[in-house]
Protein backbone atom coordinates (compact mmCIF):
# COMPACT_ATOMS: atom_id res chain seq x y z
CA UNK A 1 0.00 0.00 0.00
CA UNK A 2 1.34 3.42 -0.89
CA UNK A 3 1.50 5.80 2.09
CA UNK A 4 -1.74 7.71 2.42
CA UNK A 5 -3.10 10.11 4.99
CA UNK A 6 -5.66 8.38 7.15
CA UNK A 7 -8.11 10.66 8.89
CA UNK A 8 -9.40 9.45 12.21
CA UNK A 9 -12.88 10.71 11.40
CA UNK A 10 -13.01 8.06 8.66
CA UNK A 11 -12.29 5.19 11.04
CA UNK A 12 -15.09 2.66 11.33
CA UNK A 13 -15.59 1.13 14.80
CA UNK A 14 -18.42 -1.12 13.52
CA UNK A 15 -16.11 -2.77 11.00
CA UNK A 16 -13.49 -3.21 13.72
CA UNK A 17 -16.12 -4.92 15.87
CA UNK A 18 -16.70 -7.39 13.00
CA UNK A 19 -12.98 -8.18 12.84
CA UNK A 20 -12.92 -8.67 16.62
CA UNK A 21 -15.55 -11.42 16.33
CA UNK A 22 -13.33 -13.21 13.80
CA UNK A 23 -9.92 -13.23 15.50
CA UNK A 24 -10.73 -15.11 18.70
CA UNK A 25 -8.30 -14.21 21.47
CA UNK A 26 -5.94 -12.40 19.09
CA UNK A 27 -6.96 -8.88 20.11
CA UNK A 28 -5.41 -6.31 17.75
CA UNK A 29 -5.63 -3.67 20.48
CA UNK A 30 -2.87 -5.42 22.44
CA UNK A 31 -0.31 -4.61 19.71
CA UNK A 32 2.44 -2.27 20.94
CA UNK A 33 4.17 -2.00 17.55
CA UNK A 34 7.40 -3.82 18.43
CA UNK A 35 7.59 -4.82 14.73
CA UNK A 36 8.84 -8.35 15.45
CA UNK A 37 6.20 -9.54 12.94
CA UNK A 38 7.43 -7.44 10.05
CA UNK A 39 11.09 -8.10 10.95
CA UNK A 40 10.58 -11.84 10.51
CA UNK A 41 8.17 -11.64 7.56
CA UNK A 42 9.55 -13.17 4.34
CA UNK A 43 7.03 -11.30 2.16
CA UNK A 44 7.71 -7.92 3.73
CA UNK A 45 11.24 -8.18 2.33
CA UNK A 46 9.96 -8.87 -1.18
CA UNK A 47 6.83 -6.78 -1.56
CA UNK A 48 6.53 -3.04 -0.99
CA UNK A 49 3.65 -2.21 1.31
CA UNK A 50 3.36 -5.62 2.93
CA UNK A 51 3.98 -4.77 6.56
CA UNK A 52 2.03 -6.85 9.10
CA UNK A 53 2.54 -4.33 11.94
CA UNK A 54 0.96 -1.63 9.77
CA UNK A 55 -2.03 -3.87 8.97
CA UNK A 56 -2.50 -4.44 12.70
CA UNK A 57 -2.11 -0.72 13.53
CA UNK A 58 -4.69 0.22 10.91
CA UNK A 59 -7.04 -2.52 12.08
CA UNK A 60 -6.97 -1.49 15.73
CA UNK A 61 -7.73 2.11 14.69
CA UNK A 62 -10.68 0.99 12.56
CA UNK A 63 -9.42 1.61 9.02
CA UNK A 64 -10.95 -1.66 7.86
CA UNK A 65 -12.43 -0.40 4.60
CA UNK A 66 -9.01 0.85 3.48
CA UNK A 67 -7.51 -2.54 4.30
CA UNK A 68 -10.07 -4.80 2.67
CA UNK A 69 -9.82 -2.79 -0.53
CA UNK A 70 -6.03 -3.13 -0.54
CA UNK A 71 -4.91 -6.02 -2.74
CA UNK A 72 -1.75 -6.42 -0.63
CA UNK A 73 -3.55 -8.15 2.27
CA UNK A 74 -3.91 -11.20 0.01
CA UNK A 75 -0.13 -11.60 -0.25
CA UNK A 76 0.32 -13.26 3.16
CA UNK A 77 2.22 -16.54 2.65
CA UNK A 78 1.01 -17.93 6.04
CA UNK A 79 4.46 -18.95 7.24
CA UNK A 80 3.13 -18.21 10.75
CA UNK A 81 6.39 -16.61 11.90
CA UNK A 82 4.50 -13.54 13.12
CA UNK A 83 2.09 -15.74 15.06
CA UNK A 84 5.01 -17.55 16.66
CA UNK A 85 6.96 -14.44 17.63
CA UNK A 86 4.28 -11.92 18.60
CA UNK A 87 4.88 -11.13 22.31
CA UNK A 88 1.29 -9.94 22.69
CA UNK A 89 -0.37 -12.92 20.97
CA UNK A 90 -2.00 -10.56 18.49
CA UNK A 91 -0.95 -12.92 15.72
CA UNK A 92 -0.94 -10.65 12.67
CA UNK A 93 -1.57 -13.64 10.36
CA UNK A 94 -4.95 -14.15 12.06
CA UNK A 95 -5.78 -10.45 11.71
CA UNK A 96 -4.84 -10.57 8.02
CA UNK A 97 -6.92 -13.74 7.55
CA UNK A 98 -9.93 -12.04 9.20
CA UNK A 99 -9.47 -9.10 6.81
CA UNK A 100 -9.45 -11.30 3.70
CA UNK A 101 -12.46 -13.26 4.98
CA UNK A 102 -14.33 -10.01 5.62
CA UNK A 103 -13.35 -8.74 2.16
CA UNK A 104 -14.80 -11.91 0.62
CA UNK A 105 -17.97 -11.58 2.70
CA UNK A 106 -18.38 -7.97 1.53
CA UNK A 107 -18.29 -9.08 -2.08
CA UNK A 108 -14.67 -8.39 -3.01
CA UNK A 109 -13.33 -10.98 -5.46
CA UNK A 110 -10.04 -12.44 -4.17
CA UNK A 111 -7.30 -10.95 -6.39
CA UNK A 112 -5.27 -14.17 -6.27
CA UNK A 113 -5.05 -16.43 -9.25
CA UNK A 114 -6.39 -19.87 -8.76
CA UNK A 115 -8.58 -19.69 -5.66
CA UNK A 116 -11.79 -19.94 -7.67
CA UNK A 117 -10.18 -22.58 -9.89
CA UNK A 118 -9.37 -24.63 -6.78
CA UNK A 119 -12.99 -24.28 -5.70
CA UNK A 120 -14.24 -25.45 -9.09
CA UNK A 121 -11.82 -28.37 -9.00
CA UNK A 122 -13.31 -29.42 -5.66
CA UNK A 123 -16.82 -29.37 -7.11
CA UNK A 124 -15.57 -31.53 -9.99
CA UNK A 125 -13.43 -34.05 -8.11
CA UNK A 126 -13.34 -33.36 -4.37
CA UNK A 127 -9.73 -32.22 -4.75
CA UNK A 128 -8.43 -28.67 -5.16
CA UNK A 129 -5.89 -29.62 -7.83
CA UNK A 130 -6.37 -30.66 -11.42
CA UNK A 131 -5.51 -34.32 -11.90
CA UNK A 132 -5.79 -34.61 -15.65
CA UNK A 133 -2.13 -33.90 -16.39
CA UNK A 134 -0.75 -36.69 -14.19
CA UNK A 135 -3.45 -39.32 -14.68
CA UNK A 136 -1.53 -41.05 -17.46
CA UNK A 137 1.64 -41.67 -15.46
CA UNK A 138 -0.06 -42.26 -12.13
CA UNK A 139 -2.42 -44.90 -13.49
CA UNK A 140 0.51 -46.90 -14.83
CA UNK A 141 2.12 -47.30 -11.43
CA UNK A 142 1.02 -50.68 -10.13
CA UNK A 143 1.81 -49.97 -6.51
CA UNK A 144 -0.43 -46.90 -6.30
CA UNK A 145 -4.07 -47.69 -5.60
CA UNK A 146 -6.93 -45.74 -7.10
CA UNK A 147 -7.47 -42.38 -5.46
CA UNK A 148 -10.24 -41.89 -2.91
CA UNK A 149 -13.46 -40.63 -4.53
CA UNK A 150 -15.56 -38.32 -2.36
CA UNK A 151 -19.27 -37.93 -3.03
CA UNK A 152 -19.52 -34.71 -5.02
CA UNK A 153 -23.23 -34.32 -4.33
CA UNK A 154 -22.56 -34.38 -0.56
CA UNK A 155 -19.66 -31.94 -0.82
CA UNK A 156 -21.80 -29.55 -2.85
CA UNK A 157 -24.62 -29.81 -0.32
CA UNK A 158 -22.20 -28.99 2.51
CA UNK A 159 -20.47 -26.09 0.75
CA UNK A 160 -23.87 -24.63 -0.09
CA UNK A 161 -24.23 -24.01 3.65
CA UNK A 162 -21.09 -21.83 3.74
CA UNK A 163 -20.17 -18.42 2.34
CA UNK A 164 -18.80 -20.20 -0.73
CA UNK A 165 -22.41 -20.73 -1.80
CA UNK A 166 -22.18 -17.46 -3.72
CA UNK A 167 -19.72 -19.13 -6.07
CA UNK A 168 -22.18 -21.94 -6.79
CA UNK A 169 -24.76 -21.85 -9.53
CA UNK A 170 -28.37 -22.12 -8.49
CA UNK A 171 -29.65 -25.62 -9.18
Amino acid at each position, binding site marked *: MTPTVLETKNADPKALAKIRTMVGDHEPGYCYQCIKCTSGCPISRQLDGFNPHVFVAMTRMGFIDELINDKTIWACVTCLTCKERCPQDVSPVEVIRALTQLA*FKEGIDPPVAGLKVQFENILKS*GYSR*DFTWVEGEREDIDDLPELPKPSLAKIKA*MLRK*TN*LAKWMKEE
Partner: protein
Amino acid sequence: MDEGGIGMDLALYLGCTVPTYGYDYELSIRKVLPKYDINLVDLPTAGCCGLPFADIDSTAWLVMSARNIALAEEENLDILSLCNGCYLSLEETKHFLTEDQDLKDKINQILAEEDLEFKGTSTNYLVLTVLHDIIQSVTKPLTGLKIATHYGCHSIRPSKLPGRPDDAETPMKMERILEALGADTMDYPERLACCGTKEYAYDPEITLKLGYSKLKAIKEYGFDAMATICPLCQYVYDYSQGSMEATFKTKIQVPVLYLVQFMGLTMEMDPEEDLGLEFMIHTSPIEPILEKLQI
Protein backbone atom coordinates in the same frame (compact mmCIF):
# COMPACT_ATOMS: atom_id res chain seq x y z
CA MET B 1 3.91 -41.89 19.19
CA ASP B 2 2.13 -44.01 21.74
CA GLU B 3 3.09 -47.45 20.52
CA GLY B 4 6.51 -46.80 19.07
CA GLY B 5 5.05 -47.01 15.58
CA ILE B 6 5.12 -50.78 15.47
CA GLY B 7 2.11 -52.87 14.56
CA MET B 8 -0.08 -49.84 14.01
CA ASP B 9 -2.91 -49.22 11.57
CA LEU B 10 -2.97 -45.67 10.23
CA ALA B 11 -5.37 -44.00 7.82
CA LEU B 12 -3.20 -42.63 4.99
CA TYR B 13 -4.45 -39.13 4.25
CA LEU B 14 -3.13 -37.84 0.92
CA GLY B 15 -4.79 -34.46 0.38
CA CYS B 16 -4.51 -32.84 -3.07
CA THR B 17 -0.82 -32.08 -3.66
CA VAL B 18 0.61 -35.52 -2.90
CA PRO B 19 -1.41 -37.32 -5.61
CA THR B 20 -0.73 -34.62 -8.23
CA TYR B 21 2.84 -33.42 -7.64
CA GLY B 22 4.10 -35.91 -5.05
CA TYR B 23 3.11 -39.43 -5.97
CA ASP B 24 6.80 -40.37 -5.74
CA TYR B 25 6.38 -39.42 -2.07
CA GLU B 26 3.20 -41.48 -1.80
CA LEU B 27 4.86 -44.50 -3.40
CA SER B 28 7.89 -44.22 -1.07
CA ILE B 29 5.65 -44.04 1.99
CA ARG B 30 3.66 -47.07 0.80
CA LYS B 31 6.94 -48.98 0.34
CA VAL B 32 8.86 -47.93 3.45
CA LEU B 33 6.29 -47.86 6.27
CA PRO B 34 4.99 -51.44 5.90
CA LYS B 35 8.60 -52.60 6.42
CA TYR B 36 8.25 -51.15 9.89
CA ASP B 37 5.00 -53.00 10.46
CA ILE B 38 2.79 -49.99 9.88
CA ASN B 39 -0.37 -50.90 8.03
CA LEU B 40 -1.63 -48.06 5.85
CA VAL B 41 -5.39 -47.95 5.34
CA ASP B 42 -6.93 -45.86 2.55
CA LEU B 43 -10.04 -43.80 3.23
CA PRO B 44 -12.19 -44.41 0.12
CA THR B 45 -14.00 -41.05 0.20
CA ALA B 46 -11.37 -38.65 1.60
CA GLY B 47 -10.81 -35.34 -0.24
CA CYS B 48 -9.34 -31.86 0.08
CA CYS B 49 -8.36 -30.61 3.58
CA GLY B 50 -10.04 -27.25 2.94
CA LEU B 51 -6.92 -25.17 3.55
CA PRO B 52 -7.29 -23.23 0.26
CA PHE B 53 -10.47 -21.68 1.73
CA ALA B 54 -9.01 -20.59 5.07
CA ASP B 55 -8.42 -17.09 3.66
CA ILE B 56 -12.02 -16.61 2.53
CA ASP B 57 -14.33 -18.63 4.75
CA SER B 58 -13.61 -20.46 8.00
CA THR B 59 -16.77 -22.57 7.85
CA ALA B 60 -15.94 -23.99 4.42
CA TRP B 61 -12.36 -24.69 5.53
CA LEU B 62 -13.39 -26.42 8.76
CA VAL B 63 -16.12 -28.51 7.11
CA MET B 64 -13.80 -29.80 4.38
CA SER B 65 -11.12 -30.54 6.95
CA ALA B 66 -13.35 -32.08 9.64
CA ARG B 67 -14.98 -34.46 7.17
CA ASN B 68 -11.63 -36.21 6.65
CA ILE B 69 -11.13 -36.53 10.40
CA ALA B 70 -14.67 -37.88 10.74
CA LEU B 71 -14.01 -40.45 7.99
CA ALA B 72 -10.99 -41.78 9.91
CA GLU B 73 -12.88 -41.75 13.20
CA GLU B 74 -15.69 -43.76 11.63
CA GLU B 75 -13.10 -46.50 11.08
CA ASN B 76 -11.55 -46.00 14.54
CA LEU B 77 -8.26 -45.05 12.94
CA ASP B 78 -5.58 -42.49 13.65
CA ILE B 79 -4.41 -40.42 10.69
CA LEU B 80 -1.08 -40.10 8.90
CA SER B 81 -0.72 -36.80 6.99
CA LEU B 82 1.97 -36.53 4.33
CA CYS B 83 1.58 -32.80 3.67
CA ASN B 84 2.42 -30.07 6.20
CA GLY B 85 -0.50 -27.99 4.91
CA CYS B 86 -3.05 -30.78 5.39
CA TYR B 87 -1.48 -31.72 8.70
CA LEU B 88 -1.85 -28.28 10.27
CA SER B 89 -5.28 -27.84 8.71
CA LEU B 90 -6.49 -31.04 10.40
CA GLU B 91 -4.70 -30.20 13.67
CA GLU B 92 -6.15 -26.68 13.90
CA THR B 93 -9.60 -27.96 13.00
CA LYS B 94 -9.43 -30.54 15.76
CA HIS B 95 -8.21 -27.91 18.21
CA PHE B 96 -10.81 -25.26 17.33
CA LEU B 97 -13.70 -27.74 17.35
CA THR B 98 -12.63 -29.40 20.59
CA GLU B 99 -12.26 -26.03 22.35
CA ASP B 100 -15.55 -24.59 21.13
CA GLN B 101 -18.69 -26.71 21.52
CA ASP B 102 -20.86 -24.26 19.55
CA LEU B 103 -18.47 -24.35 16.61
CA LYS B 104 -18.31 -28.14 16.81
CA ASP B 105 -22.12 -28.36 16.76
CA LYS B 106 -22.28 -25.98 13.79
CA ILE B 107 -19.74 -27.98 11.76
CA ASN B 108 -21.35 -31.29 12.72
CA GLN B 109 -24.73 -30.02 11.56
CA ILE B 110 -23.23 -29.46 8.13
CA LEU B 111 -21.37 -32.78 8.17
CA ALA B 112 -24.72 -34.49 8.83
CA GLU B 113 -25.38 -34.04 5.09
CA GLU B 114 -22.95 -36.91 4.66
CA ASP B 115 -23.98 -38.74 7.87
CA LEU B 116 -20.60 -37.89 9.35
CA GLU B 117 -19.69 -36.69 12.82
CA PHE B 118 -16.49 -35.09 14.03
CA LYS B 119 -15.73 -36.40 17.52
CA GLY B 120 -12.09 -35.40 18.03
CA THR B 121 -11.06 -38.84 19.29
CA SER B 122 -8.42 -39.57 16.66
CA THR B 123 -4.76 -38.61 16.64
CA ASN B 124 -3.25 -37.02 13.55
CA TYR B 125 0.41 -37.82 12.92
CA LEU B 126 2.81 -35.94 10.69
CA VAL B 127 5.10 -38.23 8.72
CA LEU B 128 8.12 -36.63 10.46
CA THR B 129 6.98 -37.93 13.86
CA VAL B 130 6.37 -41.42 12.53
CA LEU B 131 9.72 -41.68 10.71
CA HIS B 132 11.54 -40.36 13.77
CA ASP B 133 9.92 -42.92 16.06
CA ILE B 134 10.25 -46.03 13.90
CA ILE B 135 13.74 -45.74 12.52
CA GLN B 136 15.95 -48.70 13.38
CA SER B 137 18.98 -50.24 11.73
CA VAL B 138 20.34 -49.09 8.40
CA THR B 139 21.82 -51.53 5.87
CA LYS B 140 23.25 -49.00 3.44
CA PRO B 141 24.17 -45.77 5.24
CA LEU B 142 24.31 -42.38 3.51
CA THR B 143 28.03 -42.10 4.23
CA GLY B 144 29.67 -38.98 2.86
CA LEU B 145 26.41 -37.15 2.03
CA LYS B 146 25.96 -33.71 3.55
CA ILE B 147 22.25 -32.97 3.60
CA ALA B 148 20.45 -29.68 4.31
CA THR B 149 17.10 -30.04 6.07
CA HIS B 150 13.94 -28.11 5.27
CA TYR B 151 11.04 -28.59 7.70
CA GLY B 152 8.40 -26.33 6.17
CA CYS B 153 6.54 -23.78 8.28
CA HIS B 154 3.38 -25.70 9.12
CA SER B 155 5.20 -28.66 10.65
CA ILE B 156 6.65 -26.57 13.45
CA ARG B 157 4.58 -23.41 13.87
CA PRO B 158 2.55 -22.38 15.82
CA SER B 159 4.14 -23.83 18.96
CA LYS B 160 1.06 -23.00 21.04
CA LEU B 161 -0.99 -25.74 19.45
CA PRO B 162 -0.80 -28.93 21.55
CA GLY B 163 1.25 -31.88 20.32
CA ARG B 164 3.52 -30.19 17.79
CA PRO B 165 5.97 -32.53 16.04
CA ASP B 166 9.06 -30.47 16.89
CA ASP B 167 10.35 -27.20 18.36
CA ALA B 168 9.29 -24.05 16.49
CA GLU B 169 12.66 -22.27 16.46
CA THR B 170 15.09 -25.20 16.88
CA PRO B 171 13.58 -28.32 15.34
CA MET B 172 15.98 -31.30 15.34
CA LYS B 173 14.06 -34.43 14.30
CA MET B 174 15.13 -34.31 10.65
CA GLU B 175 18.75 -33.90 11.70
CA ARG B 176 18.48 -36.86 14.09
CA ILE B 177 16.91 -39.05 11.42
CA LEU B 178 19.52 -38.15 8.79
CA GLU B 179 22.35 -38.73 11.24
CA ALA B 180 20.85 -42.13 12.09
CA LEU B 181 20.88 -42.83 8.34
CA GLY B 182 24.60 -42.07 8.30
CA ALA B 183 24.44 -38.64 6.60
CA ASP B 184 26.07 -35.42 7.77
CA THR B 185 23.89 -32.45 8.66
CA MET B 186 24.67 -28.90 9.67
CA ASP B 187 22.75 -25.86 10.82
CA TYR B 188 22.64 -22.99 8.32
CA PRO B 189 21.17 -19.49 8.54
CA GLU B 190 18.34 -20.14 6.04
CA ARG B 191 17.36 -23.49 7.59
CA LEU B 192 13.89 -22.38 8.73
CA ALA B 193 13.20 -19.98 5.85
CA CYS B 194 9.76 -20.36 4.25
CA CYS B 195 9.57 -21.97 0.78
CA GLY B 196 7.01 -19.37 -0.33
CA THR B 197 4.74 -21.85 -2.07
CA LYS B 198 1.49 -20.01 -1.31
CA GLU B 199 2.88 -16.87 -2.93
CA TYR B 200 2.52 -18.60 -6.31
CA ALA B 201 -1.09 -17.49 -6.17
CA TYR B 202 -0.21 -13.82 -5.61
CA ASP B 203 3.08 -13.34 -7.44
CA PRO B 204 5.03 -16.39 -8.66
CA GLU B 205 8.21 -14.38 -8.99
CA ILE B 206 8.33 -13.94 -5.21
CA THR B 207 8.09 -17.72 -4.74
CA LEU B 208 10.92 -18.26 -7.18
CA LYS B 209 13.04 -15.62 -5.42
CA LEU B 210 12.46 -17.17 -1.99
CA GLY B 211 13.12 -20.67 -3.30
CA TYR B 212 16.23 -19.69 -5.19
CA SER B 213 17.76 -17.78 -2.28
CA LYS B 214 17.61 -20.91 -0.14
CA LEU B 215 18.91 -23.29 -2.81
CA LYS B 216 21.73 -20.88 -3.66
CA ALA B 217 22.74 -20.74 0.00
CA ILE B 218 22.67 -24.53 0.27
CA LYS B 219 25.00 -24.78 -2.72
CA GLU B 220 27.38 -22.21 -1.30
CA TYR B 221 27.57 -24.03 2.02
CA GLY B 222 28.64 -27.20 0.23
CA PHE B 223 25.61 -29.41 0.89
CA ASP B 224 25.13 -32.34 -1.51
CA ALA B 225 21.35 -32.33 -1.28
CA MET B 226 18.23 -31.08 0.48
CA ALA B 227 15.66 -33.13 2.39
CA THR B 228 12.01 -32.09 2.65
CA ILE B 229 8.87 -33.54 4.25
CA CYS B 230 6.11 -31.55 2.53
CA PRO B 231 4.89 -31.74 -1.09
CA LEU B 232 4.20 -28.00 -1.18
CA CYS B 233 7.81 -27.20 -0.27
CA GLN B 234 9.05 -29.93 -2.62
CA TYR B 235 7.05 -28.29 -5.41
CA VAL B 236 9.17 -25.16 -4.96
CA TYR B 237 12.62 -26.66 -4.42
CA ASP B 238 12.37 -29.64 -6.77
CA TYR B 239 9.66 -29.05 -9.36
CA SER B 240 10.31 -25.31 -9.77
CA GLN B 241 14.11 -25.55 -9.95
CA GLY B 242 13.95 -25.40 -13.74
CA SER B 243 11.84 -22.22 -13.63
CA MET B 244 14.35 -20.67 -11.23
CA GLU B 245 17.21 -21.55 -13.55
CA ALA B 246 15.35 -19.93 -16.46
CA THR B 247 14.29 -16.85 -14.47
CA PHE B 248 17.63 -16.15 -12.84
CA LYS B 249 19.74 -17.45 -15.75
CA THR B 250 21.85 -19.73 -13.63
CA LYS B 251 22.52 -23.40 -12.95
CA ILE B 252 21.20 -24.70 -9.62
CA GLN B 253 21.10 -28.51 -9.92
CA VAL B 254 20.61 -29.27 -6.21
CA PRO B 255 19.15 -32.75 -5.60
CA VAL B 256 15.99 -32.38 -3.50
CA LEU B 257 14.44 -35.54 -2.08
CA TYR B 258 11.79 -36.35 0.48
CA LEU B 259 13.22 -37.55 3.79
CA VAL B 260 11.50 -40.92 3.34
CA GLN B 261 13.25 -41.35 -0.02
CA PHE B 262 16.63 -40.99 1.69
CA MET B 263 15.38 -43.58 4.17
CA GLY B 264 14.39 -45.89 1.30
CA LEU B 265 17.87 -45.60 -0.21
CA THR B 266 19.39 -46.81 3.07
CA MET B 267 17.02 -49.81 2.91
CA GLU B 268 18.40 -50.66 -0.54
CA MET B 269 15.13 -49.86 -2.27
CA ASP B 270 15.09 -49.23 -6.00
CA PRO B 271 15.31 -45.48 -6.75
CA GLU B 272 12.83 -45.77 -9.61
CA GLU B 273 10.55 -48.73 -8.87
CA ASP B 274 10.18 -48.16 -5.13
CA LEU B 275 10.91 -44.47 -4.61
CA GLY B 276 9.67 -42.91 -7.86
CA LEU B 277 12.76 -40.75 -8.28
CA GLU B 278 12.43 -40.86 -12.05
CA PHE B 279 8.75 -39.96 -12.30
CA MET B 280 8.03 -36.86 -14.37
CA ILE B 281 7.15 -34.97 -11.20
CA HIS B 282 10.68 -35.37 -9.79
CA THR B 283 12.87 -32.97 -11.74
CA SER B 284 15.99 -32.17 -9.69
CA PRO B 285 19.05 -34.33 -10.38
CA ILE B 286 19.54 -37.59 -8.48
CA GLU B 287 22.66 -38.89 -10.23
CA PRO B 288 25.13 -37.03 -7.97
CA ILE B 289 23.62 -38.78 -4.94
CA LEU B 290 23.43 -42.22 -6.49
CA GLU B 291 27.03 -41.89 -7.67
CA LYS B 292 28.25 -40.87 -4.25
CA LEU B 293 26.41 -43.79 -2.65
CA GLN B 294 27.51 -46.15 -5.45
CA ILE B 295 23.95 -47.22 -6.25
